[in-house]
């Protein structure tokens, strides 16, 4: 299944992705502005890897995930999934691509139709892809229920009869029904109790191995992302601020925003915890409809300089495999800066391991 070649090739390549939503006003619904939900975002996800996407609420994490599945219309940029450009794919190509990428949603309450039984919910993707007879579908539903740890006897029950964690398992079973290659986990654990979070994350990890899945793991829980992800991308106001292998990023953050985020993360070691100094960011997140000039983070950045107001920093490679968008790194960092589009794929082999 996994040839060395497919290991190296990225499963999904996102380049300069922009998702802007128009703001209309007045009787004639004239466009008076745009919300830059996602602005010039570029990243790759390799086969079998987990990319954690973190950031605060409203920073465009979910929109990025939905754009990949073509659930929102993108404004500009390209998303290549296994070599096919998703935004430009026609109906026939999409029919072929859809089963290969699936999504797990945040709110297990809202993501299951309250009027369908568990069996109907899990079988829906199978019906839509026109697979199998009724009997085979049911067999497959039972297999999926087994693999996510649901009792087969519950197939005729309705979602409201289950707890949050069990509902999330139903959602996971539905996402796996078509044997996808990429699963976008849109804050799958945010709505769950802490004790259940661990179970669901362990289930996701187990399934990743057994089903050879690639995850885009969207979350605002830095601790959980550290646990599950191979690489992490930090988003702020629709832009990726920093991206890199998780160990490097957590131990030595490059971008002031990442630094501030990580300083809020409690340390389990009491000695380290005592030494932890929180960097408190002042002010509120700027409006994505009216982002600040230059670097979008400059209004809250403790290290902002004049240059930050004037020029937008480039999202550039700072060290092998590590990318960040910050002028400070430009000045002090070493010389080999490139845009990820050119070097990301090439340098990948030696980054993580």
């Amino acid at each position, binding site marked *: 299944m996994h040839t060395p070649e497919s290991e190296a090739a990225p499963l999904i390549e996102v380049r300069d992705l922009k998702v802007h939503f128009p703001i209309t006003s007045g009787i004639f619904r004239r466009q008076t502005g745009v919300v830059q939900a996602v602005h010039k975002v570029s990243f790759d996800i390799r086969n079998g890897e987990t990319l954690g996407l973190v950031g605060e609420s409203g920073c465009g994490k979910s929109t990025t995930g*939905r754009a990949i*599945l073509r*659930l929102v219309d993108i404004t500009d940029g390209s998303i290549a999934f296994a070599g096919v450009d998703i935004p430009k794919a026609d109906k026939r190509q*999409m*029919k072929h691509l*859809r*089963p290969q*990428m*699936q*999504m797990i*949603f*945040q*709110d297990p309450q*809202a*993501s*299951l*139709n*309250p*009027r*369908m*039984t568990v*069996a109907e*919910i899990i079988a*829906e*993707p199978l019906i*839509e*892809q026109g697979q199998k007879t*009724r*009997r085979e579908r*049911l*067999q497959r539903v*039972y297999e999926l229920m087994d693999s996510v740890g649901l009792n*087969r006897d519950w*197939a*005729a029950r*309705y979602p*409201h*009869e289950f707890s949050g964690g069990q509902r999330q398992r139903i*959602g996971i079973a*539905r996402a796996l029904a*078509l044997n996808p290659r990429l699963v976008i986990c849109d804050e799958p654990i945010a709505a769950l109790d802490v004790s259940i979070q661990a179970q669901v994350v362990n289930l996701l990890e187990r399934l990743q191995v057994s089903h050879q899945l690639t995850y885009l793991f969207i979350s605002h829980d830095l601790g959980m992302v550290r646990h599950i992800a191979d690489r992490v991308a930090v988003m702020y106001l629709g832009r990726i601020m920093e991206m890199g292998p998780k160990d490097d990023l957590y131990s030595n953050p490059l971008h002031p925003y990442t630094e501030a985020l990580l300083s809020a993360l409690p340390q389990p070691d009491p000695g380290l915890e005592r030494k932890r100094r929180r960097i408190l960011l002042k002010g509120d997140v700027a409006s994505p409809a009216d982002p600040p000039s230059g670097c979008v983070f400059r209004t809250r950045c403790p290290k902002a300089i004049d240059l930050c107001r004037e020029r937008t920093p480039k999202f550039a490679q700072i060290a092998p495999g590590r990318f960040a968008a910050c002028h400070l790194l430009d000045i002090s960092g070493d010389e080999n800066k490139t845009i990820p589009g050119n070097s990301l794929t090439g340098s990948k082999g030696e980054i993580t391991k």
Partner: protein
Amino acid sequence: MTEAVEFTAPPSSQWNDVWHQFKSHRGALVGCLFFVFILLTVAFGPMVWSIDPQYIDIRARNSGMSIAHPLGTDQLGRDTLARVIAGGRTSVAVGVTAMLLSVLLGTFVGVLAGFFPKFDGPLMRFTDLFLALPLLPLLLVMIMLFRDVLRSVLGPESGVFILIVCVIGITSWMQAARIVRGDVLSIKEREFVLASRSVGTPPVRLVIRHILPNILSPIMVSATLGIANAIITESALSFLGLGFPSDFPTWGRLLYDSTDYLQQYPERVLWPGLAISLTVLSVNYMGDGLRDALDPRIRGR
């Protein structure tokens, strides 16, 4: 793999559960039985109570309740029971068909407007337009225009029946459309719709599988209210002389005919009035029970 075979029996049917829940709603059960009773009466009543509702027995006019005339007679000596039964036939038929038409229209417009943003503006303005029209003059004009044409093509009674059903249906779908649109707007943003879109479900199947079952409650409510509304509108039209021919009994017509004698013979208003109210009430209870029975969240309790 023997156990797998054993377990592949399909999950048990949910219609048993629906019936079980419906039974446990006492009002719904009574309402349902009463509505069936009304249907049977208006369908087979004339065979049992064989007096012709049009037969004029002038010597027995204005008589009270008696063995010969259990509900009395009117000012021309026509038997009230026979007239209520015959009137019920028309009124219930008009009520149910007009309700079906208006709910279908309303749901169609509402779903279209709610689900497809590009239709939303035009369709909702169109709905506002209909809401803003003064209904009674509109009804009168429509009937004036089409009555004679339809009569000559389809015969006097079925022509008027179809005309009245259409006219009532066309002028009463707006509330349903608005309610449905609102609900569709909220349901279509839910994540299970997104999940369904992500597997490539085409819009029509999406609406049928996810949207419609979840907006059943408001549809059911507007349907039950619609029956009452249709029966009453039909009465008003008959009263204005634009509905069925004047000697053709309907509940509304009986009611209006009796108002002239309200002071001398108040019971004469009572019978058709009671028939209308009880029908509406039973349908309301039935709709209520059905709505609960079809909602798995309530059914589980």
